[in-house]
């Protein structure tokens, strides 16, 4: 993984000192709150319902064991013993003090981490595939390009006061595990006819109030042109993005209002001025960063592990965990292990300091010290020997991280909601807890199969409910929490926005409603058909009827 050089270290250290000075000036009154707010946001520090919230960047979801261990320490020393992994692969702490925030950032800087630009109207954390470097369908490692984009976008002097936040995602595989089509800019690594690597550039995707799928702007950009093309895309947005209305300020509104063709024309015109200039990415730098992501020293192993096979046979619980939580690795004898942070009845995405430290230990022991964070709020050990998988599973069990529900209706993605977030209209966590408990039976869970369920506590859609196979949006109806259900969303390469199934459900009704939807699927499905496929075949009608009765 990428290791900081002196230039990188200097930047994060300078940033810590800058923020320390800004906090001092706020506390002394030199800076008003209005002036200070964008500065603290650009260091990921929000003011939420109960306290400040610090969002720490986990670039493209990649962590070393040392970094994960530090995140655990920060939870323990500066917070209340836990952290929350988010739908953008970051981690959030819910109880930091403003006065201690510079110290937290200093501790992060020691392990090559930061909270730079995790909020504010600037370019946010560039997210990517949590299976990068391990998945067999990868055309090129998206982390190389994500790291290049991370550096280019950091403290960018032209793009730090945009109309609104800006989110970029990169996928290196045709199976999109980074949801690029619902990002402001989405990048797909492809090969052209000559076999050369390049990028499809998509723009204008997003969720929130007006969910939209991104539009293809250019079907091939060569690596050396990546940054100049991104600059052109950003400059057109900075110039023309709306500034009059916060809810119409994202690039998706611009692309929608002027049309993808006109947006493309503006970008291409701008790019002609930029493409052969200083923005051309030097080969030496690409090579340097690529070298940082060289594969670890994989052992030469047989494709089949006798030990693993034997345990699958002997231990049904283990077999169930492997079925849901383990994915094929491109190297023989290895596997990708997904750690579910969705215990039955638990808080999705939360992990205690002890659990974080345990995962760090497991990574060191069994995964070349690498951990990943997924945008479904789970963790990944990307390179585990099949021979070691059973021991890992036992170890996960000892720290309650062995829930075998990844990719199922129990693997609920939920924003913090009204329990924590000052933007929320309704709570999301209790809803997820009750649904999780309703589907606690593992046999039933596994019979239902692949199903994504996302819950957002408000229209900002941080729970990504628009792209859940089942989406739940919390709303406030006359002071009471109600829940609107959507069906058919998808976050993958066939991205789709879910459709509202009907009138919203009360807190008491929503768990039954979800069960009704799942049962309807079970009744109608054809052999091997996943939930979303049954929905795509049959549409809303059978679900509407089951929920609300015949029309």
């Amino acid at each position, binding site marked *: 993984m990428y290791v900081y050089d002196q230039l990188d270290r200097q930047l994060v250290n300078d940033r810590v000192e800058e923020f320390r000075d800004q906090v001092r000036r706020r506390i002394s009154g030199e800076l008003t709150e209005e002036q200070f707010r964008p500065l603290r946001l650009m260091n990921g520090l929000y003011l939420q*319902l109960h306290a400040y919230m610090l969002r720490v960047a986990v670039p493209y979801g990649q962590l070393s064991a040392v970094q994960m261990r530090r995140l655990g320490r920060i939870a323990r020393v500066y917070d209340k013993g836990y952290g929350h992994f988010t739908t953008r692969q970051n981690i959030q702490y819910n109880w*930091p003090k403003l006065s201690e925030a510079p110290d937290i950032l200093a501790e992060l800087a020691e392990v090559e981490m930061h909270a730079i630009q995790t909020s504010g109207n600037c370019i946010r954390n560039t997210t990517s595939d949590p299976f990068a470097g391990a998945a067999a369908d990868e055309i090129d490692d998206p982390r190389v390009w994500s790291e290049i984009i991370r550096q280019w976008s950091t403290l960018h002097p032209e793009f730090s006061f945009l109309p609104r936040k800006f989110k970029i995602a990169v996928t290196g595989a045709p199976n999109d595990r980074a949801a690029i089509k619902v990002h402001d800019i989405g990048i797909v690594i492809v090969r052209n006819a000559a076999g050369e690597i390049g990028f499809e550039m998509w723009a204008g995707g997003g969720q929130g109030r007006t969910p939209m799928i991104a539009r293809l702007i250019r079907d091939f950009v060569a690596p050396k042109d990546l940054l100049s093309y991104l600059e052109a895309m950003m400059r057109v947005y900075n110039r023309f993005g709306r500034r009059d209305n916060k809810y119409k300020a994202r690039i998706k509104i611009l692309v929608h209002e002027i049309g993808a063709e006109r947006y493309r024309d503006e970008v291409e015109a701008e790019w002609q001025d930029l493409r052969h200039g200083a923005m051309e990415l030097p080969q030496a730098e690409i090579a340097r960063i690529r070298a940082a992501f060289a594969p670890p020293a994989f052992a030469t192993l047989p494709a089949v592990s006798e030990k693993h096979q034997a345990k699958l046979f002997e231990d049904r619980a283990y077999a169930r965990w492997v079925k849901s939580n383990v994915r094929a690795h491109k190297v023989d004898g290895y596997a990708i292990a997904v750690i579910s942070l969705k215990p039955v009845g638990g808080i999705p995405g939360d992990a205690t300091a002890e659990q974080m430290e345990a995962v760090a230990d497991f990574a060191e022991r069994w995964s070349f010290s690498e951990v990943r964070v997924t945008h479904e709020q789970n963790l990944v050990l990307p390179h585990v020997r099949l021979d070691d998988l059973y021991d890992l599973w036992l170890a996960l069990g000892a720290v309650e991280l062995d829930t075998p529900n990844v990719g199922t209706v129990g693997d609920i993605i939920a924003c913090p909601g009204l*329990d924590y977030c000052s933007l929320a209209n309704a709570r999301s*966590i209790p809803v997820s*807890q009750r649904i999780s408990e309703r589907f606690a039976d593992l046999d039933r869970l596994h019979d239902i199969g692949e199903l994504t369920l996302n819950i957002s506590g408000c229209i900002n859609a941080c729970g990504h409910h628009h792209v859940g196979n089942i989406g739940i949006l919390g709303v406030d109806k006359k002071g009471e929490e109600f829940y609107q259900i959507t069906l058919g969303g998808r976050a993958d390469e066939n991205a789709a926005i879910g459709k509202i199934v009907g009138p919203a459900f009360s807190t008491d009704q929503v768990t039954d409603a979800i069960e009704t939807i799942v049962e309807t699927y079970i009744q109608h499905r054809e052999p091997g058909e996943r939930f979303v496929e049954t929905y795509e075949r049959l549409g809303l009608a059978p679900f509407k009827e089951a929920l609300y009765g015949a029309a």
Partner: protein
Amino acid sequence: MSLQAVTANRLGDGLVIYLTATGWSEQVADAATADTRDAAQALLDRALAQPGHAVGAELIEVEQGADGLRPVRYRELIRSLGPTVRADLGYQAA
């Protein structure tokens, strides 16, 4: 008009505070109240005059409950107590 109080977040640690007759408290039960527009504005002005202590001061509706003053809006109730899903966190834990 309905009974109003002023709430904010404390600058240094971000915790929820309520304006009282003499200063600030973490307990909504201690909040100073106003039932006229002018009185409410006066409370808010007092809070806004302390940007070195309180951030995001605003008026909220409160009512007298069985255990004393409490917020009316559910969101504010959660702010006064803590996350509903973690009884061990926030003021409710005390």
